């Protein structure tokens, strides 16, 4: 019958005992002669004064009471706590089970703490990377403006704005992680203290549980502990959900960082297209400058070509026969490709 109870729905176990009465009474009898209404009895019946009272109030006063968030949460946590204890067949088992669950919970909380720390580091790393990328885009915007490429500067600043939004969201998330970490640390500390106190208490209670007073004590001790464990479990679950959300988001940001976030201007796939465009503009600017210098030189002195600086000579060498012609389509080409994307 205990198995049936254990597999019962949480609400069923918290409901008034009418239909389950005989079986539960049987279980109670095996436990003790605990008085009706004592904590142990309530515990065994899968209800508590709070829960019973709440149910009563809900029926009596209707909507207003049943809507209370705090009372509804209390009912849920008590029901969960009781369900966790339904597996125990006697008080000694209940104490041991309770103890094992606490230790297990503490381990889970510690694992979650490690996960939170990892998530936090990852967020911090990403924030640094995003910031570096934003700074780089800022520099590129300046370079583009200096090269009279307002279109490129605009593109760089637009991307920078997108990164800024991401950075802001990362900041908010970082705060959330810190809260999670804090709550988990508190939970771990309290569980640790609770476990130490419970370990000694449980042996004392087991040794004396024949006495009816001790029966009630066990019920009280265990239901209090069980409530705290349920809280720890819920806190853990919430932290895990947050960590999952964070990991999903971190994955998206990694992707964003990898691709540069953004539609590829030149359609060459990946890499820093703004930088390439800037380099190209700078290169064609240099060709223009060298050509201008050559023209000036030829027009001015009629002196030797050997006066050209060596790097310019290499670069300009191929374009010497058709002065100026190759450089211009090049520059326009860059401009056109830039315009295509706009």
């Amino acid at each position, binding site marked *: 019958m205990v198995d049936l109870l254990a597999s019962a729905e949480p*609400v069923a176990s918290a409901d008034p005992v009418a239909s389950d009465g005989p079986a539960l009474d049987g279980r109670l009898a095996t436990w003790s002669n605990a008085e009706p209404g004592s904590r142990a009895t309530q515990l065994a019946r899968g209800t508590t004064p*709070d829960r019973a009272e709440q149910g009563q109030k809900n029926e009596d006063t209707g909507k207003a009471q049943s809507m209370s968030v705090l*009372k509804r949460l*209390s009912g849920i946590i008590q029901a969960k706590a009781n369900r966790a204890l339904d597996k125990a067949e006697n008080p000694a088992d209940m104490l041991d089970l309770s103890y094992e669950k606490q230790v297990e919970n503490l381990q889970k909380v510690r694992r979650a703490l490690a996960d939170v720390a990892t998530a936090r580091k990852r967020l911090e790393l990403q924030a640094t990377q995003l910031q570096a990328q934003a700074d780089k885009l800022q520099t590129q915007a300046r370079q583009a403006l200096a090269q009279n490429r307002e279109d490129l500067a605009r593109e760089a600043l637009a991307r920078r704005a997108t990164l800024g939004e991401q950075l802001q969201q990362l900041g908010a998330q970082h705060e*959330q992680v810190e809260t999670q970490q804090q709550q988990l640390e508190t939970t771990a*500390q309290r569980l640790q203290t609770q476990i130490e106190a419970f370990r000694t208490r449980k042996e004392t209670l087991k040794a004396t549980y024949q006495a009816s007073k001790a029966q009630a004590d066990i019920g009280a001790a265990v239901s209090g502990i069980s409530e705290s464990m349920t809280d720890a479990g819920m806190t853990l679950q919430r932290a895990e959900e947050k960590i999952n959300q964070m990991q999903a988001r971190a994955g998206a940001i990694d992707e964003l960082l990898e691709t540069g976030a953004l539609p590829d201007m030149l359609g060459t796939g990946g890499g820093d297209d703004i930088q390439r465009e800037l380099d190209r503009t700078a290169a064609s600017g240099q060709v223009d400058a060298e050509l201008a210098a050559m023209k000036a030189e030829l027009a001015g002195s009629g002196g030797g070509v050997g006066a050209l600086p060596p790097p310019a000579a290499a670069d300009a060498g191929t374009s010497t026969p058709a002065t100026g012609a190759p450089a211009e389509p090049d520059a326009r080409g860059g401009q056109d490709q830039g315009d295509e994307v706009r």
Partner: protein
Amino acid sequence: MIVRILGEGRYDVPDADLPAIEQLDDVMVDAMARGDDGAFAAALADLITQVRHDGTLLAPDDVRTSELVVPHEGSTIEEVRALLAEES
């Protein structure tokens, strides 16, 4: 009256605080019905502040159960709805 803040612990809060707590509870219920995240967050924050301020934190080995349970600090309406959904 024992009030638990999820993820934090239990506080022994003076009964005189009950009306104020119930009022904030009502504000939360109302905010949930309207889907007003801002009002909900504000009421929850006020509630937690009040419980911490007026209440005495119970030692972890104190086994008393709580009468009221306050959601985790910073919970959203969506998160609380998910918790409450476990009722049915």
